[in-house]
């Protein structure tokens, strides 16, 4: 093959040929990819046909450009922003946060005197240590709920989380934090990152492919090419827009980003609703309780200062009753559900006081000798009651070009083990690590190959946890004699077989990625 010196002259082809080529399927290929500009003229060079397109009107307007746009300023979205701001490799990245909550832009305002928010989340020790690594503290109202007790109604047994941890260096505090966005916003204020809050809703997103015209004549300045052709463009409800290299969807289970990116989900609705509210006790409560009732578990989660949160999973009919009944009636119903209702207290009489299993554990867990503690009585309501429908959802994939999903946008689970937001935090920190690795090797942070690393890291763990929680939910939703006995035996085994108990606790605390495999 020989090439003559000098460039071959470009020949302009007239419009007729251009028209003819428009009908070619390959040309439609380009149109489908989103180039919406009309062709100006055709050039033929060597054996290439080059199409020069009209100038792009977008080029002339000044659309702000960011490295990362986080849609959704909730706990998980803010955690991602915090994490990116704290790492030396990523702290130079410009971040935009899009959330229509007006409180977000106004700054941190956690008031100790305010009554607690009825929405509560469980934060595991693993999440706490991730936050410590990125220099954040959980500043919301927390309570050092050092122990947790789970009660299986059917078998009259209880599973005491305290016992499993003491011998092995302590499990650390499971902290129950109020779902307060400003906890993390405060941390970000202190960091010198370039961030912007967009207090609007997202209305649409377009992922431009590289839509640029080719200039055959090298004398034409390269500024004529569209610099923004390779970015995602987000349009807001107030008319403003921005471009970003990476769009992160942290906008909850009904994620708009997920919808716009065309990512499908798998899942099903549970025929259960969660009733949540804040309640008050006479004395301070330090223990988290969860009791499995026939309709669903009721959880009492301490958040300090004599307040606790109730998360009560019930049938949809029951939930509307709960919401509409008077305050005193509801308080009575809650006490009934937690304490005396539905059956006697678990005692240590069954199975000979657990002696059957003492030979398995080297030393008996201390809880075996304690008498059963009763959950503290609720005296009054501290907030209004809210009802949320429960469902399981998992996105088919977490990342596509220029889009990544974290938190509830990627997966939702049943709240029975308090794992949902912890999975979200895990996603946020994993994504920020992957972004840092990408920046370290100079890659484009919106590239699919990089984002798939994040997906590979988190998907297995998230699917495993989702499956286990779904299994729990299904196991406890059936009231059938032989199954109840089996369930009770499993529960009893988990309480008294120390290695198993240790494994369960460390998996639920986030120290272990996959269950039963150390």
């Amino acid at each position, binding site marked *: *093959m*020989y*090439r003559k*010196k*000098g*460039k071959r002259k470009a020949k302009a082809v007239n419009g007729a040929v251009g028209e003819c*080529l428009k009908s*070619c399927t*390959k*040309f439609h290929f*380009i149109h489908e990819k989103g180039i919406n500009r009309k062709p100006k003229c055709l050039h033929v060079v060597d*054996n*290439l*046909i*080059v*199409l020069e397109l009209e100038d792009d009107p977008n080029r002339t307007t000044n659309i702000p450009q960011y490295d990362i746009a986080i849609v959704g300023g909730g706990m998980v979205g803010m955690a991602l922003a915090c994490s990116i701001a704290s790492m*030396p*490799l*990523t*702290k*130079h990245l410009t971040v935009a946060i899009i959330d229509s909550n007006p409180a977000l832009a106004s700054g941190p305002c956690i008031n100790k005197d305010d009554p607690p928010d009825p929405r509560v989340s469980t934060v595991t020790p693993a999440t706490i240590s991730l936050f410590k690594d990125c220099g954040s503290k959980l500043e919301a109202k927390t309570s050092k709920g050092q122990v947790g007790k789970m009660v299986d109604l059917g078998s009259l047994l209880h599973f005491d989380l305290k016992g499993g941890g003491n011998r092995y260096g302590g499990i650390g505090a499971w902290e129950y934090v109020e779902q307060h966005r400003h906890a993390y916003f405060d941390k970000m204020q202190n960091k010198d990152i370039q961030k912007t809050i967009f207090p609007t809703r997202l209305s649409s997103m377009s992922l431009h*492919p*590289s839509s*640029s015209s*080719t200039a055959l004549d090298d004398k034409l300045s*390269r500024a004529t*090419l*569209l*610099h923004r*052709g*390779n970015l995602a463009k987000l349009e807001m409800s107030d008319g403003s827009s921005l471009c970003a290299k990476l769009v992160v969807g942290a906008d909850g289970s009904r994620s708009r980003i997920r919808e716009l990116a065309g990512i499908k989900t798998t899942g099903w609705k549970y025929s259960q609703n969660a009733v949540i509210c804040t309640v008050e006790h006479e004395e301070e409560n330090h223990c988290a309780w969860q009791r499995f009732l026939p309709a669903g578990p009721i959880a009492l989660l301490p958040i300090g200062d004599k307040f606790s949160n109730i998360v009560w999973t019930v049938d949809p009919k029951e939930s509307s009753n709960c919401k509409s009944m008077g305050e005193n009636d509801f308080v009575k119903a809650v006490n009934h559900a937690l304490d005396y209702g539905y059956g006697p207290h678990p005692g240590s009489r069954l199975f000979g006081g657990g002696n059957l299993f003492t030979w398995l554990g080297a030393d008996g867990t201390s809880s075996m000798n304690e008498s059963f503690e009763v959950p503290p009585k609720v005296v009054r309501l501290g907030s209004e009651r809210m009802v949320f429908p429960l469902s399981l959802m998992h996105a088919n994939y977490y990342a596509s070009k220029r889009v990544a999903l974290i938190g509830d946008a990627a997966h939702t689970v049943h709240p029975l083990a308090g794992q949902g937001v912890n999975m979200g935090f895990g996603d946020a920190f994993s994504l920020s690590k992957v972004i840092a690795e990408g*920046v*370290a*090797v*100079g*890659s*484009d942070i919106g*590239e*699919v*190959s990089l984002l798939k690393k994040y997906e590979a890291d988190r998907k297995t763990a998230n699917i495993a946890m989702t499956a286990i929680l779904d299994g729990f939910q299904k196991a406890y939703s059936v009231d059938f004699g032989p199954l109840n006995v089996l369930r009770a035996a499993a529960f009893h085994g988990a309480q008294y077989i120390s290695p198993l108990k240790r494994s369960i606790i460390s998996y639920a605390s986030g120290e272990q990625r996959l269950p039963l495999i150390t």
Partner: protein
Amino acid sequence: MERRSNLRSIKSWNFFFLGCHCHAIIRWDAEGPFKPLHLMNPTRLAFIRSTLCRHFRKDPNCARPFEGLKFVDVGCGGGILSEPLARMGATVTGIDAIEKNIKIARLHADLDPITSSIDYRCTTAVIKFVRGRFLLSSYILTMRAENLVEERGEFDAVFALEVIEHVADPADFCKSLAELTVSEGATIISTINRSMRSYAAAIVAAEYILHWLPRGTHQWSSFLTPEELVLILQRASISVQEMAGFVYNPLTGRWSLSDDVGVNYIAL
């Protein structure tokens, strides 16, 4: 030849594509025909980053450690190496003999303001096929004479990744590379070892079984063993300080750095 048939096969499908734009899509598509290169890229960049940070005494935790350094990427192709280097702060010049490659590289680089500063150059020298071999070294000499004379010896680092195995006279090529760098500069070369394993992996597996590369892309006889490369570089007054191998894990589909220089390796 092999390279010619490679080009011919490119030519046969490019007639239907309108614009270099489509070439860029193909070359930069991480799942497309250039997938093996895209897979290997982060691994070799990790090696480059850590060794050059040590060499130039830069902070490895900085987001743009190569700020202020001038690099040249010889045989840059579509710019798959040049763009990450530019993102790491370097002032990059990319050179390639094939004009289409330069056009593709420019097109893709202009999409991002950071990478649009890369200076891509193509020579217009005559490219002869001698027994079907791509005579890269003669083009380097011509280029040196015509285009890079004023910039001779001004680059802090020269990269020639996966190029030297396509060159007719590696010794000459290395001398040219040496001339392009400053006295304390770095030269990074990556290539394929000449061993039984590399014949099985790079020729048989990559070209005939997995079809990662078109048949005839590589000639086993033109591969260099690490010892030969070190000798050639020493004669060109380049001392080799570090060397690492690339190993492909078929289960994870990832490349990683290792001490095993049996197939692919990179040297600083």
